[in-house]
């Protein structure tokens, strides 16, 4: 665990961004542990708020994350049919803490999404807990802290941030 470098983490996160940009969502899902969580809190909440007691935009356990992926790959997920085009930039990657079997990581993101002639910008910070496995990292927790106030004018999170 001590030998993990920031470059290792960057490679992992850049790969994650590429899978999402290419809509390879089932493959992206394999990056997560079985007990994983993916959460996007509302922007008027403290960054460490719990989704058990506060209203979020997204609070997926691994099962619902799987449903999210299944849904987004269907034609009947109307908000993403046809799939939007996205471009994710991931930067400012930092390892904040090293534990026995996982590390705490943050990165900032800027994601552009284009659909039907309209382009929206999503930006903020992603906080990760990355588990170390023999074959590389797995995401145990991904908490997306949106910059800005609310979702205006982007309006929705129909992609994965």
């Amino acid at each position, binding site marked *: 665990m001590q030998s993990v470098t920031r470059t290792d983490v960057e490679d992992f996160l850049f790969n994650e961004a590429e899978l999402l940009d290419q809509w390879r969502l089932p493959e992206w899902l394999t990056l997560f542990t079985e007990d994983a969580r993916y959460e*996007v*809190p*509302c*922007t*008027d*909440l403290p960054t460490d*708020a719990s*989704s*058990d*007691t*506060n*209203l*979020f*935009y*997204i*609070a997926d356990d691994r099962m*619902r994350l799987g*449903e*999210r992926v299944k*849904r987004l790959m*269907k034609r*009947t*997920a*109307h*908000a*993403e049919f046809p799939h939007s085009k996205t471009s994710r930039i991931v930067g400012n990657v930092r390892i904040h803490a090293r534990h026995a079997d996982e590390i705490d990581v943050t990165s900032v993101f800027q994601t552009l999404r284009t659909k*039907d002639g*309209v382009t929206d910008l999503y930006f903020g910070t992603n906080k990760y807990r990355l588990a170390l496995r023999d074959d590389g990292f797995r995401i145990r927790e991904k908490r997306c802290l949106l910059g800005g*106030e*609310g*979702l*205006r*004018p*982007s*309006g*929705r*999170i*129909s992609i994965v941030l």
Partner: protein
Amino acid sequence: MNAEHPQPALLVNPAQRIFKVARRNFVDPEIFKAEKEKIFDRSWLYLGHSSELPKPGDFVTRKVAGRGILFTRDSKGQLRALLNTCPHRGAQVCRERKGNAKSFQCFYHGWVFGADGKLRSQPGEASYPEGFKGRDTSNMQPVPRFETYRDFNFISFDGNIMPLVDYLAGAKEYLDVICDQTDAGMSIVAGSQEYSIRANWKLLTENSIDGYHAATTHATYFDILMSSTDNLATGMGGGGYGYDLGNGHAVLEYGAPWGRPVAQWIPGWGEAGKSEIERIYDNLVQRHGEARAERIARKNRNLFIFPNLVVNDIMALTVRTYFPMAPDYMVINAWALAPNDESAWARKYRLNNFLEFLGPGGFATPDDAEALEHCQRGFENSKEALWNDISKGMGKEKPHHDDELQMRAFWTQWNKQMFPAPASGIKSVAA
């Protein structure tokens, strides 16, 4: 304005079961302008819930129909709705979204106001006449009208509007049914969903009380629900009715297969959940009797209060309000409401339920937004393709919840306020 327009806003003929809405109503800048004056300046508008300001000094700032409002609980515990503008030179006084404060200071020249809006002090007081502070015009101005029903706080910019309870008409009884879920009071859960849709605001009114679109627009949600519940057969099809509640308000009330934290159990919630739900249900029966308890717990309600408040009592309880910013752009604020005496288990499942279906990151709301935006795009053809049809269920003695009576109720009131004297060409405005 409309009188000179060759095309009426509505085309209604009950005998032939025709109810058409001009698509121009969704795109015309003149309509957009007139709505500000004739709808939003003459209605009761939802401001916030009393639970958002539990303690003296608590405040939130909020935009309602284009006005900045400072919503406070003053030192005596009384709720106040103030126009968030300094009586001196107009600057916005409070620039924070929420918090607790003993007083509010306008940073421009330093005037200080209490949470009741009264001027406390101003720099250079000696240069003002004696008694200046005692003048009403020296205080922050309250909104023209401010009234509360069961912790739902409304404001109106029309000083002569009828009292809120009269305005609510038949919607009052439905708010009662919703609030009677508990006798411990309800609170807004922390976390505000603030989003937007690139579509006319009236499309969200229609969508919020539209029981017809669920099976197709929300196909993916029902796929998931089907895999997590075994009572889908009781489903969305025939189990409910739509009602015109007067003054433009409407509701649909129906049975549905999803779990309800108050109080309909689904297998996905396990045995622990089952006993909890049974306890809540038994409690309702004790307080309200079997029939009303059954209605409170097992029926779903999509309640619309004219012109822009939706209270959805479905797989969770939501409060949603929205405002037009342009003919083709609206902003939306949505909250979760929950009983104060709810267990941690139930609260968790409530929020889980909420996010599965609702909100801009859920499995349903993004598809609604997509539908509304594509209606707005379709209206690009409104000069040639003139009309929307909302006649479904017309002439039925008791229209079903997936008929369109609710929309006809909204549009009839909208038309009455927009064009009070029947304009030439409007054949009828009856729903």
